[in-house]
């Protein structure tokens, strides 16, 4: 049986762990709210931008623009994966890693190659093992820094456009976690190129100034940057939600552990007192008999 001191040490350790997990839960809750607010603020902006794109798409329903219709031969596919920079967020990274691995194996089965851009260090090593010869992988660190997020998104969008225009990639998609609520998340795959538009129901002609092509040159990279920005915010919200849930579970586990340890500590203490009493009584009896 462990000594009382050992029990006290264990209880102390669990108490300090509980303090850490409960503060991490609070911090994650605040960060989740901030990220959700930011994502909500930019949602209308992204929706309106997509609406404008769908109006432009009406001009290219004949398939004359490969940004909308896609390339006939898809050989190289680019995947941008939004994961986490830090751990202690439950199965957040595992789920997104697993989904990406499934997509990669699908591309390999079709005979294509993958150019993987991993945002967030956590699933990098896992995803690296899923690649074969001819595939490429890149790690982008410190992407989520709030003050540089939009700039980073713009830079990545420019790179994506350059890769597509030069023919190095034929299709681009992003894999990210959509935050449905503080406790539920869903991994989603969104196509950046070809651009997926909701059909525009309005009728009548539209004037394009300057020309449709020039507008496309401006709007497409910008739309990609906004999609990346929006997905990054959703992903951050998902990560914080996942962290909050797992820290809540950890705090509850620590509470349970503390309660069990306290019971065991009291039982041991009681046992020691009873044992000492028995010793004193039996000693006194022996002396009285002698």
């Amino acid at each position, binding site marked *: 049986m462990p000594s009382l001191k050992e029990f006290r040490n264990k209880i102390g350790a669990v108490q300090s762990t509980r303090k850490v997990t409960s503060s991490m839960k609070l911090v994650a809750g605040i960060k989740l709210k901030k990220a959700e607010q930011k994502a909500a603020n930019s949602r209308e*902006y992204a929706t*309106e931008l997509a*609406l*404008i794109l769908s109006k432009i798409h009406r001009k290219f329903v004949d398939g004359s623009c490969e940004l909308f219709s896609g390339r006939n031969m898809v050989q190289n596919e680019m995947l941008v994966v939004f994961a986490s920079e830090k751990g202690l967020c439950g199965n957040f990274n595992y789920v997104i890693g697993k989904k990406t691995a499934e997509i990669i194996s699908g591309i390999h089965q079709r005979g294509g190659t993958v150019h993987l851009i991993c945002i967030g260090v956590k699933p990098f090593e896992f995803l690296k093992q899923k690649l074969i010869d001819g595939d490429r992988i890149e790690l982008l660190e410190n992407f989520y820094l709030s003050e540089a997020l939009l700039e980073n998104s713009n830079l990545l969008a420019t790179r994506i456009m350059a890769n597509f225009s030069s023919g190095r990639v034929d299709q681009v998609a992003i894999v990210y976690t959509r935050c449905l609520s503080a406790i539920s998340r869903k991994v989603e795959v969104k196509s950046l190129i070809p651009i997926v538009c909701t059909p525009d129901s309005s009728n009548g002609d*539209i*004037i*394009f100034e*300057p020309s449709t092509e020039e507008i496309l040159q401006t709007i497409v990279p*910008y739309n990609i940057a906004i999609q990346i920005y929006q997905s990054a915010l959703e992903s951050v919200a998902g990560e914080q939600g996942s962290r909050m849930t797992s820290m809540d579970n950890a705090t509850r586990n620590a509470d349970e552990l503390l309660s069990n340890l306290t019971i065991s500590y009291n039982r041991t203490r009681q046992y020691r007192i009873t044992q000492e009493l028995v010793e004193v009584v039996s000693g006194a009896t022996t002396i009285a008999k002698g």
Partner: protein
Amino acid sequence: MRAKILKLDRKLFDGEITKVVVPATEGEICLLPHHMAIITTLCRGSVRVYRSGYTHPVIIKIDGGICSFSTNTATFIIH
């Protein structure tokens, strides 16, 4: 007619207007009710929004963006 001016992090204007003057890349355009549907890129300048019931315009300085006008609604996506 209605105008919506959106920035990435917030909405700058949303309301009923009588006309709006926009700094399009090919020159200023004045959008009045029942204007034909138009999509244009914007350059650095000022968007002048004339609200219903006011004589003076609301002036919003922009660095660029995209403007779309259809079904009597002007939507501005500001960079």
